[in-house]
């Protein structure tokens, strides 16, 4: 079985400048392999090359070098598009069409019969929570509602692989929850979901694997659990009924002590010593345990660290590419 998505050394240069055009490298030798059934998070700060990658996969732009395949076929293969769905970043659709008409139009491009189109359109608009508004022209839609319509149009053909570019953008908390549920539902149906985001909480809640891009380059890729589990930074111990003088006497001293309320403290302990000793000491003085949690590197920390690494390596590589020109 071919991978759902295979990207090999994909590079994209844009020409910038009005008169004397200079190349600007938006994406630099990206290689990725995404297996069928994965929910893959494509993460990175703004301008990292996420949207460029998605556009290359949809062949909205052509690569400077490298290649990519979707479901074993080169990108740009029109027939493969019957099996994929795509939601662009901040999508825009025709103002003059109603949500129903837009979806019907797109469904026509897949060649579905009239009855089939009606069924699909009604089902999907229900699924994304567009009610009676479906008969309104899209010009009257809010950003979040257009986003929902965009998600619906990406799923019209029951795609095997779904590409979402910033699917949560423009959505309120309720909408975000819906989209999360939808992505998990797609995963349960065995579909592959490739989504880009700069919101790490989404990735944490949804992805089996992630890639982090920064400055057009792949900074890291891997299993989310692995990335996070490797770096346990310490322990967070919350206790109640603690006497302040006991805290001062604790050995080894906690890295940080935060008083939450009268007698209730949060202590941050380093990984050098097991937390049991501190816990026992406090318990002996009459305090009781509220919670004890390992402090992981969050994806946020990981992200910042990786981006910083890539950014620091960046000036050299730019020099190198200039020398190469």
């Amino acid at each position, binding site marked *: 079985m071919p991978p759902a998505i295979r990207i090999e050394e994909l590079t994209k240069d844009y020409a910038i400048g009005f008169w004397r055009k200079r190349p600007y490298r938006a994406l630099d030798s990206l290689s990725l392999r995404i297996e069928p059934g994965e929910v893959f998070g494509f993460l990175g700060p703004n301008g990292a090359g996420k949207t460029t990658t998605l*556009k290359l996969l949809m062949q*909205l732009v052509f690569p400077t070098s490298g290649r990519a395949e979707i479901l074993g076929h080169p990108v740009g293969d*029109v027939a493969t598009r019957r099996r994929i769905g795509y939601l662009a970043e901040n*999508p825009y659709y025709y103002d*003059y069409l109603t949500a129903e008409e837009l979806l019907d139009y797109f469904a026509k491009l897949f060649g579905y019969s009239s009855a089939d189109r009606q069924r699909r359109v009604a089902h999907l608009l229900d699924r994304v929570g567009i009610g009676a508004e479906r008969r309104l022209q899209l010009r009257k839609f809010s950003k979040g509602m257009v986003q929902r319509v965009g998600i619906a149009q990406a799923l019209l053909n029951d795609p095997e692989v779904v590409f979402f570019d910033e699917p949560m953008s423009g959505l309120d908390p309720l909408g975000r929850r819906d989209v999360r549920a939808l992505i998990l539902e797609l995963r349960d149906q065995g579909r592959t979901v490739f989504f880009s985001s700069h919101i790490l909480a989404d990735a944490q809640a949804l992805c089996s694997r992630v890639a982090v891009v920064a400055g057009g380059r792949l900074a890291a890729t891997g299993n989310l659990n692995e990335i996070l589990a490797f770096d346990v930074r310490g322990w967070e111990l919350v206790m109640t009924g603690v006497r302040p003088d006991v805290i001062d006497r604790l050995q080894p001293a906690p890295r940080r002590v935060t008083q939450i309320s009268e007698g209730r403290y949060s202590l941050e302990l380093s990984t050098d010593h097991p937390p049991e000793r501190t816990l026992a000491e406090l318990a002996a003085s009459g305090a009781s345990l509220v919670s004890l949690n390992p402090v992981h590197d969050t994806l946020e920390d990981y992200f910042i660290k990786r981006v910083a690494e890539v950014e620091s390596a960046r000036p050299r590589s730019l020099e190198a590419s200039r020398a190469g020109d």
Partner: protein
Amino acid sequence: MRVISAIAVSVFRESVRDRVLYNLVLFATLLIGSSFFLGQLTAGQDVKIIKDLGLAATAIFGLFISIFIGIGLVSKEVERRSIYGLLSKPISRPQLILGKYAGLVLTLAVNVTVMTVAIYAVLAYMTWTTPAPIQTAWDAPGVDPALLKALFLIFVELTLITAVALFFSTFSTPMLSAAFTFGLYVVGHFNADLRNFQSVVESKSAATLARLLYHVLPDLSAFDVKTAVVHGLSVPWGYLALTTGYGILYIAVLLVIATLIFSRRDFK
């Protein structure tokens, strides 16, 4: 074919919902209607004025529709990024171009038909109210079927201009495309002068260049048989067929080049 017709229908629907189009058609129809009153001011020339004005209004308003909607067809999709959603569907870029073009040709056909009906309605009323002896002084009958020849060639010319607008809009900004298309329209109508340029200038190279331009640029004056028709001169069927063939060939070449450019374009 299914894809192309789906896109064409959507273009037609877009134009029908566009207020600009309504205004243009309404205004043109009003102008044709008002030619009746204008005709009253000139003794004996009334039918000619109605025909002249009617045909000119059809050509000019058709030109506006061709340029403004023709350019918007593709450039609006690119500018507003609705093309991202469209091109992720199982359609090829040439299909997109052809569908858009077909849709606008359909829109133009409907517009030209509406204006044709308006012209004939005014002419029919005119013929009905004019005593028979006066009618004998007219160059051509009031409700003259020959007018259809002129209207048909106007339609072919408009589809050609639409192809020009579409061609420019595949690689240029809307403003520039409008300017280029309008420029080409004007040049196209004076193109015949370029053919005989060597009789006006001495420089051989200038004459050669003019001749080259004559062959590259569309000869739009060929489509203009308004004067002949209004004055009751015959327009042979052979001429009609040849001119239409020329238009179709020119359109085909433009669409092929537009498709080639569009198929290689990055949508940033």
